[in-house]
């Protein structure tokens, strides 16, 4: 397969950046998208050119690092996968593929296709945890009964890998799906009840402070989410927020 790649190149955070076209040949349909970029980079290094910088780590759909906007969609054209799980058989010979970094004010470009997603870490740090005694008297989590339905839902919410596809897909660059998943994973469990009000208020405040947009319920986030985090999480964070506002 022969492809033309239109890739965003940007030297550093303050540089302007522009698209550059590359031709890649002998692309195998069984290659992953990242392996195809590896081939391109090997070729660029051979020619003495600067390779294309892109984020990746586990390459098995768990870490959420490989955040690329491919042909206008986060993680490419397929649903429920990350970029590393996208195979080149999803494209046709002669295609031109546009590859951009995730665009959001809260996700500034560091270099080429790599963006800084530490805003997510700060939202998590603002309340995405439970305070437990770890001094040796830790209570076994399984000793607290949890309804099966709630346990399953909390687990589903906890599968969010924080890749940022929700932000990238949203017309408002909103981080509501991410934040709501991180709120929901505790809101559904008795262990999370104690800090529930403080958690949602602080996390929403941090989310707004980071410069993400508001949610207008377009649903693009959950369509593009590789882990199928549902919109029920957003309804839940809205509920939790209203409840906390009334209580305070």
């Amino acid at each position, binding site marked *: 397969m022969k492809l033309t790649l239109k890739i965003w190149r940007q030297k550093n955070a303050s540089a302007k950046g522009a698209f550059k076209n590359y031709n890649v040949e002998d692309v195998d349909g069984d290659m992953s998208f990242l392996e195809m970029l590896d081939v391109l980079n090997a070729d660029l290094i051979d020619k003495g050119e600067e390779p294309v910088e892109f984020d990746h780590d586990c390459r098995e759909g768990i870490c959420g690092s490989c955040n690329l906007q491919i042909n206008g969609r986060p993680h490419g054209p397929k649903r429920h996968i990350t970029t590393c799980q996208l195979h080149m058989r999803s494209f046709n010979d002669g295609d031109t593929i546009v590859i951009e970094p995730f665009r959001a004010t*809260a996700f500034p470009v560091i270099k080429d296709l790599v963006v800084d997603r530490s805003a997510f870490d700060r939202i998590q740090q603002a309340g995405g945890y439970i305070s437990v005694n770890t001094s040796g008297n830790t209570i076994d989590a399984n000793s607290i009964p949890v309804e099966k339905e709630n346990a399953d839902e909390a687990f589903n919410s906890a599968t969010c890998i924080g890749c940022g596809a929700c932000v990238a897909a949203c017309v408002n660059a909103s981080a509501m799906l991410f934040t709501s998943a991180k709120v929901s994973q505790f809101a559904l469990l008795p262990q999370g009840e104690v800090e529930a009000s403080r958690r949602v208020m602080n996390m929403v405040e941090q989310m707004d402070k980071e410069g993400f947009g508001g949610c207008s*319920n377009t649903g693009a986030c959950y369509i593009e989410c590789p882990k199928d985090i549902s919109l029920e999480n957003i309804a839940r964070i809205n509920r939790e927020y209203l409840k906390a506002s009334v209580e305070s």
Partner: protein
Amino acid sequence: MLSASIAKKVAMALSGLFLVFFLAQHFTINITSVIDPDTFNEWSHFMGTNPLVQFVLQPILIFGVVFHFIMGIIIELKNNKARQKGYAKYAGNKNSSWASRNMIISGAVVLAFLGLHFYDFWVPEMIYKYVEVNEALESRYYPELVHKFEDPIRVLIYVVSFVLLMFHLWHGFSSSFQTMGWNNKFSKGLQGFTKVYAIAIPAGFIFIALYLHFNQLSH
């Protein structure tokens, strides 16, 4: 209190639901113009002269409309800041509806229409009643309404505006429940109702405008 993004959206949803409720009431009165002009005159006269409607509900309604639009613009400006550099290629239609992504456009058209609507009906009514202090004739409403729909350009503007309102309601009505945290086993049924409402009410207003226009031509 409305500094948080969720609080703004909830305020937007509540004011939107209030306007949705008002729209149903407005349509109920307007459809009588097609069925029985005397009933239309009678109900319009009641709405136009009842002190509770005029001095309590009307100011609340105007506040609701102004609040909804101002809040919409504030939210839009904040959302625009969240992505200052857009994508070279953006496939939004693959993951969301046009209506959901362009509420500001459909809202702006509805706002422009409201300007015309106020100019057409509300301003002359206020002058008639409170400036010129004319006698509140019950029989005047239907002829005034019919007269407005003589102009085909006005009818066309009405039709286009209500199509845009259809898009606005298609997303906004159902979305308001999600914003207020309501997403459960009953949501699917409610979504169905909101979608039917989003089509039926604007289509009803379009029907009234077209009926009154073509009915005159046939006489």
